[in-house]
Every structure is written in structure tokens, then in C-alpha cells.
């Protein structure tokens, strides 16, 4: 019994450690006082001024553009790549998977700097260089989500479809696609989350003038905290929560079908 209670207490402590800071942000976003420790009554004014703040809104728009473009392109390139990789011989597959792991394992700061060094040789830093950089770290997540699904797909079912007169494209659409769709979907969502969250790589490849939420926040936080950021935090937390629920709902539906 003692053991049971002490483990519950431990869970509670870690839970508080993880969530207290987030709760603080959410509470402060509704605080009428500018102070961090005095409750000045409930207000929604920080949300209004957040929406009116051009810096925040502009970087929000940029973030969405980059995230969506990069995630969609990464999903297409990554899914095709996964199909190709699966058809490869052992050696080619090992080389490509090794290369796929580099952006995941390498330090973000090194990835960002090395891309910046390459980009400035050929072009000016800006929106498109950030997009390329995001694609580079998004594609591996798509591949790593799709490949296991592909490996689990029965090769004989695909061949049986060909045998029955289906074209490879039709056989793919009817046989392979339904199996890998959940992987493609979760790969896409993973790419979205990674793009939304990235700071370091964006920071080095963005140049002047372009800002995502992360880089904007970095600049602003070094100047000081403004209450609009609490509102922004609350909003972003809710977005992250929503994305995760979509992801989980997707996978639990998939499980039901499998069962």
C-alpha cells in the first residue's frame, strides 16, 4: 500500500514539474495585470492585442506557409522514396537509410549552419532556403513512418493483383495504398509538428526579414516578455493538443480496423 501511494506521489510530482509551467502561461494569458505574480482580474485583451500585433501575425502566417508546404512536399517525396527504398537491394537500402538518419541524429546547430554555408554560396537566404531546410529534416520522418507499413504489406497480394491483370499503378492504389495510408498520414503529422517546432535550423537559414514563430519569439524573448506571448503560448499549446488528438484518433481507428 505504501508503495502504491509513494508511486502515485511520484507521478504527481513529475506531472506538476511538466505542466505547472504551461499552466502558469495559460493563467497569465488571462491576467489583466501585467505583473507575473499578481492576479488583476480576468481579461481577453492580450488575445486581442496578439491578433493586432503585426510581428506576431506575420510570423504566424510564415510559419503556416512553411509548415504546410514543407510537410506536403515532404510527404510526397518521402512516400515515393520509401517505396523505392523498399524495392532496393540490401546495400542500397542501407546507404539510403544511413543518409536518412543524418539530419535526425546530427546536432541541429550543425545541420543549420552547414545548410546556411551552402545556401549563401548560390543564393540569398530567405523563405525558399528555410523551406528547403525544413524539407530536409521533414522527409526522414515521413520515410521512417511509411517504411514499416510498407514492410508489413504483403508482397504477394500486390503480385496477385498484377497476376489478375491490374496495372502496377492500379494495384498500388488498391492494394498497397490502403495499407500504408496510416503511415503516410502519421508521417505528415510528424513533419507538421517538427516544422512548427523547429528553431535552430530555421534560425540559421532564414536570413533577415523572414521570421517563423520560433525565431520571432527568440528575438522577442531576448528583449523581454510581453503578455501577448502568454496568449500565443496558450494558442500554440491548444494547436499542439489538437494535432496530437488527430494523430491518436487516426491511429486508434486504424487499430480497430486491424483488430
Amino acid at each position, binding site marked *: 500500500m505504501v508503495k502504491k501511494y509513494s508511486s502515485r506521489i511520484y507521478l504527481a510530482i513529475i506531472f506538476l514539474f511538466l505542466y505547472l509551467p504551461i499552466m502558469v*502561461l495559460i493563467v497569465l494569458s488571462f491576467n489583466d495585470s501585467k505583473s507575473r505574480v499578481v492576479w488583476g482580474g480576468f481579461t481577453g485583451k492580450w488575445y486581442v492585442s496578439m491578433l493586432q500585433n503585426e510581428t506576431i501575425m506575420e510570423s504566424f502566417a510564415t510559419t503556416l506557409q512553411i509548415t504546410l508546404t514543407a510537410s506536403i512536399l515532404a510527404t510526397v517525396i518521402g512516400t515515393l522514396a520509401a517505396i523505392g527504398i523498399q524495392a532496393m537491394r540490401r546495400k542500397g537500402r542501407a546507404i539510403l537509410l544511413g543518409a536518412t538518419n543524418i539530419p535526425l541524429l546530427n*546536432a541541429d*546547430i550543425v545541420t543549420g549552419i552547414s545548410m546556411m554555408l551552402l545556401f549563401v554560396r548560390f543564393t540569398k537566404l530567405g523563405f525558399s532556403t528555410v523551406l528547403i531546410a525544413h524539407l530536409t529534416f521533414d522527409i526522414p520522418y515521413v520515410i521512417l513512418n511509411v517504411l514499416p507499413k510498407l514492410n508489413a504489406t504483403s508482397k504477394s497480394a500486390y503480385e496477385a493483383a498484377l497476376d489478375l491483370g491490374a496495372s502496377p499503378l492500379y494495384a498500388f492504389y488498391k492494394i498497397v495504398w490502403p495499407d500504408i495510408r496510416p503511415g503516410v498520414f502519421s508521417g505528415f503529422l510528424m513533419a507538421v509538428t517538427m516544422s512548427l517546432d523547429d528553431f535552430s535550423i530555421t534560425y540559421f537559414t532564414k536570413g533577415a526579414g523572414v521570421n517563423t514563430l520560433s525565431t520571432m519569439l527568440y528575438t522577442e524573448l531576448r528583449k523581454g516578455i510581453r503578455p501577448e506571448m502568454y496568449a500565443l503560448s496558450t494558442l500554440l499549446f491548444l494547436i499542439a493538443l489538437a494535432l496530437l488528438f488527430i494523430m491518436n484518433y487516426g491511429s486508434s481507428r486504424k487499430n480497430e480496423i486491424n483488430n
Partner: protein
Amino acid sequence: MYNFKRQFLSGPYIIWIVGFIVLPILVICYYGITDASGSFTLENIIAISEPIHMKALLLSLKLALVSTLLCLALSYPLAMILNGLHVKHQSFIVFIFVLPMWMNFMLRILAWQLILSNNGILNTVFQALGLPRVSLLNTPAAVVFGMVYDYLPFMILPIYNSMSRIGNDIVDAARDLGCNKFQVFAKIILPLTVSGVLSGIIMVFVPALTSFVISNLLGGGKVLLIGNVIEQEFMQNTNWNMGSGLSIVLMIFVIASMAFMNSHNKEGEGTAVW
């Protein structure tokens, strides 16, 4: 059409790998071993031995090590408790403990700024309790706090995953063959979670070692890590050759720590987080 080579579908990605993964690394290596005029030199790499660089590197290693150990110490018991929960929504509870991982990184740091600052929440609470004020912000301790907070889920998840893969019947078998509860832990649970622990260590140690944001925001420019030195070489001093040289050193440390972990992973299977 039957002989259509599916391998070709990887084409765009292979071009991508060459252009944006391999090439940038070659470029940074090129910068690292040349000087401003483009002639070969090892000075940028040897520059790590300069006192200010060496101090930053050692501090980075120290803080990364402390953060990793703290994460491990917090996560292992947590994973055990989570794995032992006999509740319907176990996966949901696990999900709650890794959820903060998905919140914007910058905002998580903002939250700690709020809590740790001199007239922040922690000190207000301390004051109310009659305790002395502490000035944690802008100290290495604040940086460690931030790192542990940021990277904790990366440690929890692989350990929990490796633990939940151990079947009940394996534990039953060990009990059946004479193990008491402690022996079950020492001979079964611990060895079978080594791979999870090792990938957790990698997932925490590498970003902690190479971070420059946490130290900038929670260290207030007073805690200089190797990541900060590199960032400054690029963004302020614009000595790209020096920055690249130091990056190469950093990369070597990253590769070395991964190689070290892999050599200790007898299972030969990394526990992927995703």
C-alpha cells in the same frame, strides 16, 4: 510495365540527399579546414584548445552530462511506475507524460524564465513561505533546469517502450526459477531496458551538448556553451572558418558519443522513439 523499376521512385530523394544532406556537410568541412583566403589549415580545429573555447566545451559536456543523468534518474522510476499501472487508459497516461514534448520549444523556455526570474513565481512562493530568495536565472543551474524540462520526455519514452515490451511471462518465468523481486529487476528488467536507456541518453545528451538557445535565454548570456561560441562566430564575429572548425569538433563529439552508446548496446537494436 511489370519490369518498372520501383527503385527509381527514390530518385528525387537521392538528389535531395546529395544536394542538401551530403553537400552541406562537405561545405562545412571545407570551411573548417581552410582559412579566409581558402588555403588549407588546421587552425580552426585546433582553436578548440584556446582557453575560452575549451572552457565552453567542458562546461557544455558537464551540463549535458548532469542534465542527462538527472533525466535518467527521474525517468527510470517513472517508466517503471507507468509500466506497472493496471489501468484501462495506461497509454493515455503515458501520453500525458510525453505531451509537453510537442509544445513549442521556445515557449517551454519562456515558462521557465517566468518561474525562475528574480521577481518570478518561484521567489514569490519562497517569500510567502518565509524562505530566502534565490537568484537562479542566469546561472548554470537554470540552464540545467531548462534542459531537463525540455528533454525529459525524450528519456521517458524509449525507456518506457523497452520496458513495456518485456512480457509478463518473462517476469513470471524468472520468479518461477527462483528470483526474488530484486533479482527480477537486476537480471531481467535492467538488462532488457539497456537499449532503451542508451537511446534515451543519446536523445538527451546530444541536444543538450549542442544547445545554444536554452543557455542564451535562461543563462542570460552569462553561461557560455560551445553552441553559443559557434553561434557567435557565425552571427556576430562572422568568422565562418573558425565557426566551421568548431562545428567539426562538435560533430566529432556527437559521433563519438553515439559510437560509444552503440558499442555498449549488446542487443544491437536501437529503440526508436517514433
